[in-house]
């Protein structure tokens, strides 16, 4: 894995990697395109023009073009592939853009009838705009690096004679790619002259093999999806960091509420106790549990209701109106008889027989009796007689 640099922590992004090739290697022409041509068809128009203009088949050319929407012409440039060594071609790997040096300047905001003269080690290049955003002509005059000033001046005059200009801009340094404010454009600066190339125009300028470029763009597309996923991770992390801060604030708020809850608890507890006491006192004064009256009702004042075979082993009250009786009998048939007899009593609301089972020749069962409210009356105390 290549060494990871932390240079990205600097405030501005690095300038894009651009390979600028000598202008003298290219032939350049402005070709007409229909004004209403769609962007996707311009490339086809350019290839048709090149097939007519160039002495070599397209497959043996590196070529690119500059066109802006609405323009009636495209500036086309091409070079024979064999003019580049394999080492030169290998050096383009990783470059975002491979173009002739003059192509870096075609995005400049030049006024009509302006000529930009770009001096380089190989010679002098003239870009001429007549009107519109696409240069009308690009001329190159080769000069040796040791050429005297007089020869350079002659070459300049010769170029300008062929390109009638109202404004002439001399550039002595090669254009340099800068980091742009947005990803939608590439910016080149050459002294005071600034050229802004929209991404789509820059892609069309790239002279590399078009199939190779397609693969590069697909790779770049995959990388962009990975970047978007990474950006999503950053956004999620940012949202969670914000959430952590909110949780911290929420924790302080919760602490305050808990303190209030604990401070109020004794007072509230007292109120709840008072309420339950009031309820209990009311029950004591208004409700009476009458267990023996219940029992008397179920057996009869003279034992006339309960069958003689039924023997109670345990009875207990359940609330104010419930009585549960555990009983046994040697005659299982008496259970139903007794249940029916109890159900017929006016004071009894319901009778349920539960869990009857045989044990040692007797049937054990549970009677759950619920009395009707307000029916039972306290029995009279036994008379002295």
């Amino acid at each position, binding site marked *: 894995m*290549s060494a990871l640099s932390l240079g*990205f922590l600097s405030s501005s992004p690095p300038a894009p990697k651009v390979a600028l090739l000598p202008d003298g290697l290219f032939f350049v022409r402005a070709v007409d395109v229909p004004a209403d041509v769609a962007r996707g068809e311009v490339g086809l128009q350019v290839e048709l023009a090149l097939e007519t203009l160039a002495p070599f088949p397209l497959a043996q050319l590196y070529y690119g073009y500059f066109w802006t929407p609405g323009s009636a012409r495209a500036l086309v440039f091409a070079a024979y592939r064999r003019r580049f060594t394999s080492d030169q071609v290998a050096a383009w790997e990783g470059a975002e853009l491979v173009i002739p040096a003059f192509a870096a300047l075609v995005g400049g905001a030049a006024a009509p009838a302006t000529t930009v003269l770009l001096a380089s080690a190989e010679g002098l290049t003239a870009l001429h705009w007549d009107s519109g955003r696409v240069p009308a002509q690009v001329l190159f005059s080769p000069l040796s690096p040791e050429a005297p000033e007089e020869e350079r001046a002659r070459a300049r005059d010769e170029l300008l004679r062929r390109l009638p200009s109202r404004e002439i801009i001399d550039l002595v340094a090669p254009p340099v790619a800068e980091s742009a404010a947005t990803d939608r454009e590439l910016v080149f600066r050459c002294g005071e002259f600034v050229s802004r190339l929209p991404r789509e125009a820059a892609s069309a300028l790239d002279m590399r093999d078009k199939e190779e470029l397609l693969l590069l763009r697909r790779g770049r597309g995959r990388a962009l999806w990975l970047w978007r996923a990474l950006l999503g991770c950053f956004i999620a992390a940012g949202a969670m960091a914000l959430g952590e801060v909110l949780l911290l604030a929420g*924790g302080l708020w919760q602490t305050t509420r808990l303190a*209030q809850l604990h401070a109020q608890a004794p*007072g509230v507890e007292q109120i709840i106790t008072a309420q*339950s006491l*009031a309820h209990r006192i009311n029950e004591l004064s208004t409700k009476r549990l009458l267990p023996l009256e219940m029992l008397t009702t179920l057996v009869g004042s003279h034992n006339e209701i309960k069958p003689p075979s039924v023997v109670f082993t345990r009875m207990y009250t359940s609330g104010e109106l419930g009585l549960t009786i555990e009983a046994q009998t040697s005659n299982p048939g008496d259970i139903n008889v007794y249940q029916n007899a109890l159900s017929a009593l006016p004071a009894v609301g319901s009778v349920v027989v539960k869990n009857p089972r045989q044990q040692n020749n007797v049937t054990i069962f549970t009677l759950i009796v619920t009395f009707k409210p307000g029916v039972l009356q306290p029995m009279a105390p036994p008379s002295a007689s």
Partner: protein
Amino acid sequence: MIRSFRAFFLGRVQRERILLLAFALMVVGYWFSHFSDQVGRFWRESRHTGSELALQAQYLAARPTIMADAQKAAGQFDPSSTLNFAGLLAATEQMATDAGMANERGDPDPDVSTGQFSVHTLRFTIPRTDWNSLLNFYIALRKRHPYIGIDRFTVSSPPASTTVNVELVLSSVEIVRGSE
């Protein structure tokens, strides 16, 4: 800085980009798991505290009414006739003795008290007593209503036995004198 990092990221080879993304996904995934736990806990605690506070607010708002109701309920009793736990136990034992019972035992249940009023609860057990004694005790107990109340009444009798075992839960209201 984002654009710088973007340029840095896009400048890496594909393998490094995938590794960076995988690492970021792991970190974010782990963080999200922890964070969602925290949010869930905070949400539950917050809701619980909110409902507790709302309930407290209801009780605090109803305090005058509840206290007035408690005073009104206590007003049904003659304070001089109300019994504390010792009084309840003594009166019950006396009634059991008068009814001819023996070996009875009384155990206290926790009191409920506001300071002004208290409700005392007594678990009273009478083993092996005859039916007539139980009847007499019951009638004596009933006469002390409402100052002594029967909360629960259990009678058990083994088959072929002439005696019964009795367990009662009795309660009494005590109004602290001078509190009315």
